[in-house]
């Protein structure tokens, strides 16, 4: 797709002409929504057809003038105009001149964990009373009615990882959400999808020499982590031994008077799926030394992991590639070190891609979760520093879908996938592009938010 043209010269006039068409389209979409409302999961039975748009399938390139059919929350058909059969009773929406693409996926946010950050009373970002808290589940705190969610999805972000803040080494377990639903139940697509392991140094308890607690150093962080995993292994072993003995007893091999079940320990139990390699650990580090320590730890315990951030690890990218794991980059706006060139972090996605590393973007910058909506612009910006456009788009759609175990359900415009579909008036990665309509599970999402209400109230 021609993403470099900006709005230069003649193509711009064409865009103006298109705008008229867009307006018509918007009115139509608005009316359609009023009729449908957000009816929740799989309530759609009548097919909805998007006709005439430029389809960015992500998996199979661009279809210049395509047709996409959605029904029962799924994509039923997709292809060039004329090749797709349209159900006779379908609701057809003409999206000529529009760009249609899969819903965007942000690989680290804090959506639903905070409303107004400052003051803290609405913050459920992280439990800092201990550093090892895998028994914390963001799903338990996730606030489905957060005002941040409509603001975010209006820009085409339909799915996200919700992670606790990174102030603990093991702050809890992430959930994979979709940004629409009547309740948390509907929005939490995968609870406890992964567990962050943060090893950036920010997890030390070293506010000052006077106010220091264990772990004051990285050595302390690593020792504490190692002990936690060892404890969990022991715990698993205790239970296994107990189960074995009980099995033997049940087979009538005599009673051991002392046979007692080990005491349940939620903290250690939470670590077991990760020690068994059933779930993914998200390993966050910035510097090469921290990265290597964290990877060594992960290997020591055979953890299945993906990497997160690695903003200052440019000197070891070949090593990173050799790990053969995906990397969540982002945000690429992290400040380079004083001795580094200005674009050192901007170039990270391109450098990783060049080495064959699968990447996904995240918007999470400290705890700024208010502008998750800007996720696509980061991907666009990365193309100006060498990342191929298609890869940039993939890094906020198909790649994260695959990383989070949703590769067969999300991330591309393919038959059988969940109908998370975005209609916009142009290049999804460009900051000027206006998103006209978002579908989540085939449902037309109200294109309104607290912010549009304020805008409208003061525009009168």
């Amino acid at each position, binding site marked *: 797709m021609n993403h470099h*043209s900006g709005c230069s010269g003649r193509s*711009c006039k064409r865009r103006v002409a298109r705008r008229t068409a867009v307006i018509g389209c918007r009115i139509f979409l608005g009316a359609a929504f009023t009729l449908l409302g957000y009816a929740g999961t799989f309530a759609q039975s009548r097919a909805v057809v998007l006709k005439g748009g430029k389809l960015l399938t992500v998996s199979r390139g661009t279809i210049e003038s395509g047709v996409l059919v959605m029904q029962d929350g799924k994509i039923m058909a997709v292809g060039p105009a004329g090749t797709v059969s349209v159900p006779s009773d379908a609701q057809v929406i003409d999206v000529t001149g529009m760009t249609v693409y899969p819903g965007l996926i942000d690989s680290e946010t804090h959506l639903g964990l905070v409303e107004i*950050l400052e003051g803290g009373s609405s913050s459920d970002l992280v439990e800092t009373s201990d550093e090892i808290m895998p028994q914390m589940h963001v799903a338990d705190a996730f606030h489905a009615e957060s005002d941040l969610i409509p603001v975010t999805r209006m820009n085409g972000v339909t799915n996200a990882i919700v992670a606790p803040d990174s102030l603990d080494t093991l702050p809890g377990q992430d959930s994979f959400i979709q940004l629409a639903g009547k309740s948390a139940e509907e929005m939490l697509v995968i609870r406890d999808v992964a567990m962050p392991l943060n090893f950036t140094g920010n997890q030390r308890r070293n506010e000052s020499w006077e106010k220091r607690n264990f772990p004051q150093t990285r050595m302390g962080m690593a020792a504490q982590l190692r002990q936690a995993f060892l404890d969990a292994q022991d715990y698993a072993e205790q239970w296994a031994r107990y189960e074995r003995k009980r099995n033997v007893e049940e087979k009538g091999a005599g009673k051991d008077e002392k046979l007692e079940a080990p005491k349940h320990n939620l903290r250690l139990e939470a670590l077991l799926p990760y020690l068994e390699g059933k779930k993914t650990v998200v390993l966050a580090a910035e510097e090469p030394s921290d990265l290597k320590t964290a990877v060594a730890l992960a290997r020591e315990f055979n953890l299945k992991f993906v990497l997160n951030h690695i903003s200052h690890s440019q000197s070891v990218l070949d090593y990173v590639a050799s790990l053969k794991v995906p990397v969540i980059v982002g945000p690429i706006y992290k400040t380079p070190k004083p001795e580094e060139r200005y674009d050192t972090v901007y170039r990270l996605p391109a450098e990783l891609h060049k080495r064959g590393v699968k990447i996904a973007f995240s918007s999470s910058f400290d705890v700024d979760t208010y502008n998750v909506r800007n996720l696509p612009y980061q991907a666009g910006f990365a193309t*100006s520093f060498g990342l191929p456009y298609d890869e940039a788009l993939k890094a906020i759609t198909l790649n994260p879908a695959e990383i989070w175990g949703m590769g067969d359900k999300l991330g591309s415009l393919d038959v059988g996938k969940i109908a998370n579909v975005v209609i916009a008036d142009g290049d999804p990665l460009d*900051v000027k592009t206006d998103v006209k309509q978002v579908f989540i599970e085939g449902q037309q999402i109200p294109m309104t938010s607290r912010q549009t209400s304020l*805008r409208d109230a003061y525009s009168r």
Partner: protein
Amino acid sequence: MPSSSSAPARGLAFWGVDNLRMFLFLLAAGATQTQAQIPLGSASAHNEVLVTNAVVMTVTHGNIRNGEIYIKDGKIAAVGVNLPTPVTAELIDAGGKYVTPGLVDCHSHIALGGEDEVNEATNPITPEMMMVDAFDYQDKAIYRVLAGGVTTSMLLHGSANMIGGQAVVIKHKYGAGREAMLFPEAPRSIKFASGENPKRVYGQERHQLPSTRMGNFAVQRESLVRAQDYMREWDEYKAQVQMGKAAKMPRHDLKLEALADILRGNLLVQIHCYRADELLTEMAMAKEFGYKVRAFHHALEAYKVADKIAAEGVGIATFADWWGFKQEAWDAIPWNAVMAMRKGVRVAIKSDSGDFARRLNQEAAKAMRYGGATEEEALKMITLNAAWVIGVDDRVGSLDVGKDADIVIWDGYPLSSYGVPNKVLIDGVVYFDRSYPGYGMPRFKEEDQ
């Protein structure tokens, strides 16, 4: 996009071709004289530069396709098409790229020694603080922001105090040394703040006045009354002396002197302020004491009272889409900039961040998306209007004859996700060149710092 192809030769309206020839002649005669005065003049001793083959986005009079900019002694000497090429000029072929004025960031805290140095947060009234005293000219942030196309920044005191310190305005001539980086004769600005920050810093953290918005404004009013008294004391003393009478000289009080300068109109008042009610209260207080507010910074609820702000001739320097991070930012909407602009408010978009300062162009592009600002309106928010907030709009912020030759040549369309500076010139000198190895700074040597 307004006049990318419709204004081919309007740049020359300011400067007829004959005048230009005459100018070139005169300048050839004086060339050797002026050369020595330009610090860091290019190695090849060119004090003339001709940028050719550009889409010149003038900001004030449309875009010029196949445009050229002729620079002489660090100033823009001509803008147009087919300018006569002086043989002595260094040629920069823009290769058909977009060229804009250097971006202006009217709200920054970089190069002031870090977070702990930006606020003298021990007293809510500290107008005698001078940011120039904290100016860390070696801070690499100046370079990183330069690489984002910003050529002028106003470095402000933080927002802990109702009346903070006096700003320093810099040009991002990284490596040229401290003095060369100070914007010559920039007007003095003073930072005010209101709302939650002073409440928190004094009320919550230090258990002292102010802890409420009532307290905030009482502290501010009190200080201005003290300044009035101070001015009266000095006036009376001077009157006595003039009449030949013996009189006791009042103390020279740095703080009160600075406050008096606000009342005398010697300082541009830049007010950190979020909520609509506080915007109104600040304007009322300015009226009460007879000073003018130059601009409200952040001004996230400006859209609620835009007509009243416009009526006072006050500008705003706002975020493109920041919101939510604190209570007083909860009603922020990304349409704020354009809604205020449509009501006649002069709007700038600023960074308030060493990160966002590196891509102000993207932030401005959001004004096109949210509310439909034209390309020129959006660009103005990070150039001419921002320069107006600082009070240097007669010197920078547009590609007009006579202005400083602060110029950005862009890879990609600047008002998009893809716009990245290819070269940045300040006062006609290339300070940043993306294609240059290392830092991309042809004139920078670490050891010269």
